[in-house]
């Protein structure tokens, strides 16, 4: 074959052609799960500067490197004390099955950290197996219940999500079983599109009053987080602080979702890397860095990502997709089921269909039985421990006796883009783009 004749167009590669034809066939936008598929500047574009002549490293195994973090020290009477600075992000019961929610709770509890509810209320499986549970207050208010509010260890007011800042939740009818429907007060089997704005406040001035109500209801006991999707993290962080947050959660564009428009996932929001730096800048300008804690999420995969996020100024990170992967998401098991969905292990983003081959993002009892909550919980705990060990390894190498002592000065950037976004010097230079 003449290679010139099989060269596809850069503007119209096969996946673009296929999507145009799918759109023409169906007349509705593509909905899918998971996070952005396109490459974006990330923590991979940074490296840590291990100790040398001017800094002295700590011994691995022997010399302690602390990992704990207190969240909610600003106003809450009962801040959360996590043993590790890695938490499990909000994922709804509905998007995930009960086994997956239970496994996440088991894993997080074993590792000494918190997990988070989602857009579907709190299940007893989840509460029962989570030693620390963050309860989300979402625009939809599905299953919102003052009893659960009082049972929670912290409250997260969700303004937005990294996969879709400015968008509301989605759950297709395939996953709205009787139980999910009852928890959300919806008819079973409908394609649910939830609101993108809260029903009783709009904007930071009204949010401040909303937060006061939540504090009054819970007698000022629980930390209150505000979660935003990263689009204008500098303003949003500043406004979250002004509105009275104890903790700000900034979710970058690599963050996952159970279902939303593909165009949203790929084209809205900014990556986690620049988002951290902008959020930290806002906290520092307000004199609130470390007083209001910052959690970042979106594409955290390894202890290196954890260490780099902390070095840029985050107090903790949150994982969603990575936690699902630890549960077995995209593992090459039941391969024929992946193929039946038109995908394969490693490329599956079919969370929205409810036909999850490995029993995580499903409400089908047969599929769900493929996930053993105990074993899966152990995998999550193992993974969280590895993230922590890796981050400690890097921190010790940088001479830190606590992960929180990592600093931007411990980082160098491998690309001009990352140097500009993270505001750390390009490796081998003292040049930070945008600064003198």
């Amino acid at each position: 074959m003449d290679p010139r004749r099989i060269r596809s167009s850069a503007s119209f590669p096969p996946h673009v052609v296929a999507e145009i034809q799918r759109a023409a066939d169906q007349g509705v936008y593509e909905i899918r799960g998971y996070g952005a598929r396109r490459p974006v500047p990330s923590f991979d574009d940074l490296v840590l500067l291990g100790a040398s002549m001017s800094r002295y490293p700590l011994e691995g195994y022997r010399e302690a490197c602390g990992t704990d973090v207190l969240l909610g020290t600003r106003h809450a009477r009962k801040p959360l004390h996590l043993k590790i600075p890695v938490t499990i992000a909000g994922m709804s019961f509905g998007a995930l099955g009960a086994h997956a929610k239970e496994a996440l709770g088991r894993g997080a509890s074993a590792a000494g950290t918190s997990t988070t509810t989602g857009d579907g209320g709190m299940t007893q499986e989840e509460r029962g197996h989570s030693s620390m549970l963050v309860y989300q207050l979402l625009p939809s208010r599905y299953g919102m219940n003052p009893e659960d509010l009082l049972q929670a260890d912290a409250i997260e007011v969700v303004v937005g999500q990294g996969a879709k800042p400015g968008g509301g939740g989605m759950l297709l009818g395939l996953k709205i079983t009787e139980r999910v429907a009852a928890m959300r007060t919806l008819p079973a089997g409908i394609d649910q599109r939830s609101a993108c704005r809260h029903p009783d406040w709009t904007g930071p001035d009204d949010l401040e009053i909303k937060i006061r109500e939540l504090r009054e209801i819970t007698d000022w006991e629980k930390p209150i987080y505000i979660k935003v999707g990263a689009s204008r993290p500098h303003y949003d962080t500043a406004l979250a602080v002004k509105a009275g947050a104890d903790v700000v959660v900034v979710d970058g564009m690599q963050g996952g979702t159970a279902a939303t428009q593909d165009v949203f996932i790929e084209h809205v929001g900014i990556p986690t890397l620049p988002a951290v730096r902008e959020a930290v800048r806002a906290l520092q300008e307000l004199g609130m860095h470390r007083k209001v804690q910052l959690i970042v999420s979106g594409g955290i995969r390894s202890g290196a990502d954890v260490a780099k996020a902390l070095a840029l100024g985050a107090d903790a990170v949150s994982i969603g997709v990575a936690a699902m992967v630890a549960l077995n998401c995209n593992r090459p098991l039941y391969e024929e089921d992946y193929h039946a969905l038109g995908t394969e292990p490693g490329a599956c983003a079919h969370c929205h269909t409810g036909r999850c081959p490995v029993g995580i993002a499903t409400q089908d009892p047969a599929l769900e039985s493929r996930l053993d909550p105990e074993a899966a919980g152990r995998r999550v705990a193992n993974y969280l421990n590895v993230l922590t060990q890796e981050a400690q390894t890097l921190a010790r190498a940088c001479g830190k006796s606590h992960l929180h002592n990592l600093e931007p000065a411990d980082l160098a950037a491998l690309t001009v883009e990352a140097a500009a976004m993270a505001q750390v010097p390009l490796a081998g230079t003292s040049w930070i783009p945008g600064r003198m």
Partner: protein
Amino acid sequence: MSRDAPLAPGRNETVYDLAATDLRAVNRALHAAPDGAVMIRNPGGAHALACGLRSPLQVRIEGHVGYYCAGMNREAEVTIDGNAGTGVAENMMSGTVRVLGNASQSAGASGHGGLLVVTGTASARCGISMKGIDIVVGGDVGHLSGFMAQAGNLVVLGDAGAAFGDSLYEADLYVRGAVAGLGADCEEKPMTDADREKLAALLRRAEMDADPAAFRHYGSARRLYNFRIDNAGSR
């Protein structure tokens, strides 16, 4: 209850004066009380007053309140002798909340149960995302009332504003006056005997004098329940 008659504390009624006591102290006391009657004076537009109640208290508030009064109420019976700000009785679970004046935006938002009565008018988004609450409004309701209403009943004795019942699910909406316009997927439904009976009972509980036969019934056309997908590509 007339709005002109000054309220005198009843027998065995605990009185709090918000001009002299701070909100936190009042709410803390209300959360701790297992039952009994309470009067709150000089609310002065305070936000989050009497929210998160969780016992069969009888609370009377003499004056105007700010945002989220009686929010997330359970079991308590709260009467506001004045106007209420945004989100009165938001996410209420049970009990009764009565506003003897007007209610601002998002009255009864996402309420799961109980009864909210507004004697005057309620403004925009009354009953937004309601999930089982019953709401009876003596006057008019503003635009986007019943937006995404999932379950429960919204009864309006006056008129309803624009985009009424937009994107609603299985809630029942009843209006005696004029409707400025129906929102997406909201349609008029037949008024059955069962509707009239339910309405009569609601009006009785709300202490409103109106003939159930004078109301029209609105509900979901259920055309937005599923994404409509063409199958032009199927062979």
